[in-house]
């Protein structure tokens, strides 16, 4: 190979290296595990889940016309325990405002979740549902908990909060939906992926 070709080969590799590095640099500060939920803007996946204590199942489409706040939780998840009070108080505050709160137990047996709710407390109007086989969690694309989905009056997923949330964020998101805005996806903290590490 002659030296001219080699010279350009060397410079070419250097240039490719720089381009590659610039692309890598553009990834700084982004969370590599974070995936934008493809459900945003799409019709919310339907479900028909029984309350944790058993009884009549609740179907999502029966709540059409309400803003639905769908939260996945478990007692083994510290972030879920931390946000629980805020979910309860927000549910209470919006009780008569056409907002339904649903909390779905994620990878936990109903008795364990019920035990937890006895000490953690529950909101009168919130529906606490069991999800056998994680079907609903899979349908919503849960990567870890807590994750909270927001479904508007027309049954469209318009928002998602990943990580521990609080009353202000929840309330502001509901307010935005009621104003007709799309809050989109927001990451507020870390999530727990499974009870067994």
């Amino acid at each position, binding site marked *: 190979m002659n030296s001219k070709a080699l010279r350009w080969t060397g410079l070419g590799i250097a240039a490719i290296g720089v381009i590659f590095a610039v692309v890598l640099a553009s990834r700084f500060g982004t969370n590599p595990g974070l995936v934008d939920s493809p459900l945003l803007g799409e019709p919310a996946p339907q479900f028909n889940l029984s309350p944790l204590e058993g009884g009549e199942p609740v179907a999502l489409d029966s709540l059409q016309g309400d803003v639905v706040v769908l939260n996945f939780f478990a007692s083994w998840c510290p972030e879920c325990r931390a*946000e629980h009070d805020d979910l309860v*108080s*927000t549910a209470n505050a*919006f009780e008569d405002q056409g907002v339904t709160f649903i909390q779905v137990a994620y990878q936990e047996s109903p008795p364990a979740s019920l035990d937890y709710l006895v000490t953690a407390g529950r909101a009168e109007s919130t529906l606490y549902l069991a999800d056998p086989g994680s079907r609903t969690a899979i349908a919503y694309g*849960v990567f870890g908990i807590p994750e909270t989905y927001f479904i508007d009056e027309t049954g469209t997923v318009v928002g998602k909060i990943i990580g521990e949330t609080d009353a202000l964020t929840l*309330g502001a998101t509901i307010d935005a939906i009621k104003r007709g805005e799309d809050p989109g996806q927001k990451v507020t903290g870390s999530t727990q992926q499974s009870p067994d590490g």
Partner: protein
Amino acid sequence: MSNTNRLFAVAIAVMAVALVFLMSTFESDTDRVEQLGQAIKCPVCQGESIGDSPAQMARDMMALVSQRVDEGASDQEIVDELLASYSGAVLLDPPASGSTLLLWLAPAVVLVVGVGVILWWRRNPTEATQPEVKEEKPRKLAPILFLAGSLAAIVVVAGFFVQDRDGPNTGAAAIDTDNLEEVSNETMEAVIAANADHPEVSGMRLALAERYFEVGDFSSAFPHYLEVAQSPDASDPQAVTALVRLGWMAWEGNREVDAAVGLFDEALAIDDTSATALFLKGQVLWCSATDLDEAASLFGRVLEDPTLESDTRSVVESDLDALNAGAACT
């Protein structure tokens, strides 16, 4: 070719054909569920497929895949269903189309280029420079290494400065009292309920109470003002505001002069220069005709405040004039 070689070539060919035939009759006992399981990433694991991972979520997904296979869904349908909720990141086996087409093509391109380079290189013998031919060694080492060293130093220093840019994700802020304009009363109620014990909640409480107060919803405002007035965490200006509002509501709502004056006095005990407390106490004393002299002196004390805004000052001055003229309050 020698005879032995020929014999071996025939034997090799026959055996190879037999081997290929035997291998082609192999039927994999991995079923569709297992195959799909290998191609889908477990969303709660890192890099493992749902077929490999012992995580509960992975096994639930395998159960779903297995059920959909039993229901007669095609591989593509099952994958598409999962993509609808999880996006392309859960695919371990990227399709040779769309944005991942290049991924499959690139290795082939590199292979072809590599073969091309070897062939081209073989056809173009290079000028063979012998090592010994090289005469004087160029002394260009120092500038290059100096450049490298200083660049390294710059990189390290830059890295040092960059480090503070994105601090750890601290999760949700407990209470954010900025930008409350867009938040509904219900949201604020929820935030306050959830953070009742938080030392910084008084600001939000006061803001919410002020909203109720402005629209005349005294019954909603009252408990929040009361909380702020009684809270040990509230700052002095917050407590003064709350006490003044409570005093005014006692007068406006229920015409309770003593209660109102008591609350204003509490506020003045915290801050004896509070213009609103002085002015409103004067107003109450004047309007209830309880103590006109005291009212006049209170108005006078308000006007002593050099920081008083001019329009407020004119209001207070006109009120003082009216009072001195013996008029009833307006």
